[in-house]
């Protein structure tokens, strides 16, 4: 009937047999092989441009060594705790921004969103005598409302996020001025809020936290493996699980041990992991869980990678975009909370300067501004890099201008790494 149609004969020709057999052998899942095979595959991916946070981790290590040599104070327990709390606000804001940057969008108003909601918070508590938890709830809901507003204009109306959020960046500064009053300043009077950045967990709780992290990591790994086994697909060698746990144990152990030493300057001993650390880690974990294991997370990557493909696959692109902006604004409120806890007061300029550092944190950490590539952890690491620069240069008593110059240079370097690796990941193809 048709010319050259595939043979319908039931007896397979020799080549067919060969094809089926080699197919069975050839289609792998990338899970096979020893630790060495996996390491080689990983190196391969890195060479093809999937560098993730590697450059940022490298930068962090190099900068730390440099500052440790240049300043005797850099490697002290006290400075280490300082560094963590200095970084926390930026870590949070960077993670917030990841949700929209993954879509190839931007939220320039995230910083002033954090500032504005904190203005509302502090005025509600200080002036109107609200219970702080109620005020916090209102601040968070305001964040949700702001995200909904941005999402409407970006996802629904189709205005570029750059424009919408630039408008809000200006507008919210005005609202802050109106709420706080020019030159006004409110002290944060809520001990619970102040303790986020200024109080520490008992020493035992730090170790307990590490134990929980290890247990959760081991639990999810084993759970994933059991699930894969049930589905009948190969697992990576179990050695990788132990290696991962080992890395967490060593890094986490060093951090907790350092923070468990007395770092006080007066007669009162100060020790323990700052309270902000477990809060940040919990949000990092939850966000990563959503991005990696749920439809919402997967669709954020899909829309960021190819929105039209996602739409044709039945993904509700408008809804995903919209929701991502809501998540971003809401997490920005938490970053604002960290900020006022550290600073101890709120003025009309709250959150004005931080947003570009937040974007820089994400990009330095390896989140692609082109969308579709990056993880929350990357933004957190990027924020640490930027915090190390600020912290280290501060210790060296260099003029403040140097800080901006160095951070800017690091950002451009990171963006270059991103662009170059994107080209490599695309291979010789002209498609993105």
């Amino acid at each position: 009937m048709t010319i050259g149609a595939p043979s319908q004969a039931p007896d397979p020709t020799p080549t067919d047999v060969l094809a089926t057999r080699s197919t069975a052998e050839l289609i792998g899942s990338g899970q096979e092989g020893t630790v060495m095979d996996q390491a080689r595959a990983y190196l391969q991916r890195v060479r093809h441009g999937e560098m993730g946070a590697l450059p940022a981790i490298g930068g962090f290590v190099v900068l730390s060594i440099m500052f440790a040599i240049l300043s005797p104070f850099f490697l002290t327990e006290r400075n280490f705790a300082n560094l963590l709390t200095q970084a926390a606000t930026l870590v949070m804001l960077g993670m917030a921004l990841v949700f929209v940057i993954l879509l190839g969008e931007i939220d320039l108003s995230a910083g002033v969103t954090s500032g504005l909601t904190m203005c509302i918070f502090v005025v509600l508590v200080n002036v109107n005598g609200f219970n702080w938890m109620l005020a916090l709830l209102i601040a968070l809901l305001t964040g949700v409302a702001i995200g909904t507003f941005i999402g409407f204009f970006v996802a629904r109306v189709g205005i570029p996020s750059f424009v919408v959020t630039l408008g809000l960046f200006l507008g919210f500064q005005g609202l802050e001025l109106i709420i706080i009053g020019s030159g006004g300043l409110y002290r944060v009077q809520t001990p619970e809020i102040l303790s986020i950045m200024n109080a520490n967990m008992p020493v035992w709780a730090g170790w307990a936290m590490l134990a929980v992290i290890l247990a959760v990591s081991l639990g999810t790994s084993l759970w994933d493996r059991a699930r894969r086994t049930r589905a009948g697909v190969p697992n990576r060698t179990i050695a990788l699980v132990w290696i991962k746990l080992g890395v967490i144990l060593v890094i986490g152990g060093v951090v907790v041990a350092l923070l468990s030493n007395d770092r006080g300057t007066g007669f009162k001993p100060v020790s323990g992991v700052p309270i902000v650390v477990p809060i940040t880690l919990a949000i990092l974990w939850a966000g990563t869980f959503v991005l990696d294991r749920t439809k919402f997370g997967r669709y954020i990557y899909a829309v960021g990678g190819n929105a039209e493909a996602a739409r044709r696959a039945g993904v509700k692109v408008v809804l995903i975009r919209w929701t991502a902006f809501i998540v971003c604004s809401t997490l920005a409120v938490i970053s604002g909370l960290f900020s006022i806890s550290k600073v101890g007061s709120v003025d009309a300029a709250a959150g004005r300067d931080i947003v570009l550092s937040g974007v820089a944190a994400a990009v330095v950490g390896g989140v692609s501004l082109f969308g579709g590539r990056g993880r929350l952890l990357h933004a957190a690491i990027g924020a640490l890099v930027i915090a190390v620069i600020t912290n280290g240069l501060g210790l060296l008593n260099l003029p403040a201008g140097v800080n901006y110059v160095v951070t800017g240079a690091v950002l451009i370097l990171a963006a270059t790494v991103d662009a170059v690796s994107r080209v490599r990941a695309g291979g010789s193809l002209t498609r993105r």
Partner: protein
Amino acid sequence: MAEAPIIELTNIVKSFGPVSVLKGVNLRAYPGKVTALVGDNGAGKSTLIKGLAGVQPYDSGEVRFAGEAVHLHSPREASRLGIEVVYQDLALCDNLDIVQNMFLGREELGFGTFDEGLMEREAAETLRQLSVRTVSSVRQKVSSLSGGQRQTVAIARSVLKKAKVVVLDEPTAALGVAQTEQVLELVGRLAEQGVAVILISHNLADVFAVADYISVLYLGQMVASVKAEDTNRDDIVGYITGSKTYNGVQA
């Protein structure tokens, strides 16, 4: 006609503003058969199948699926009926891997989270079933695949959920000789499995190699629908260019 068509489009009309792209088009597709849809650039082929996919609904006309009138207003509705489309501009996400792309929009969940193992196995099985030989790992990122491999993934994606109708929009346009051969083989295998395949192609050699029926679209009108064995290349070229008119029985 021995077998009932699974897809029957009648009097389909679609315009973009003042531009009338489809002017009352009829098309049928049969289970286990390859129906080629040919026509010059801009004839309206892609527009016709975008309506079938629910991506770009028709203005008017009747769509029957397995004898029942249906309305296709979203990709989900089409997908629920078992209509899958592989687009001309391959709709894949470069930043996701093969499994993630094949399951995009219909991920397997267990306990509210992805059952990656299950998806991985089904993806590998589908590729194996289609005798795909060219991908080494189902966890490869699509950005690292060649054009033919992408086409393969896109087709496998459509097969994955036991599609009843698979539409392929110029699947071989960007491919080399060997990869074209592989994709055509894949098309034949789809039909063998009882799928109704609608194949859009400009390459008449490809069309005659795999098609059972050939429908020719000319400036938004279906000018011929014939059995491949009852026609020849010259006639089809004539219908496509409008230099010949068909006056036989519509197949």
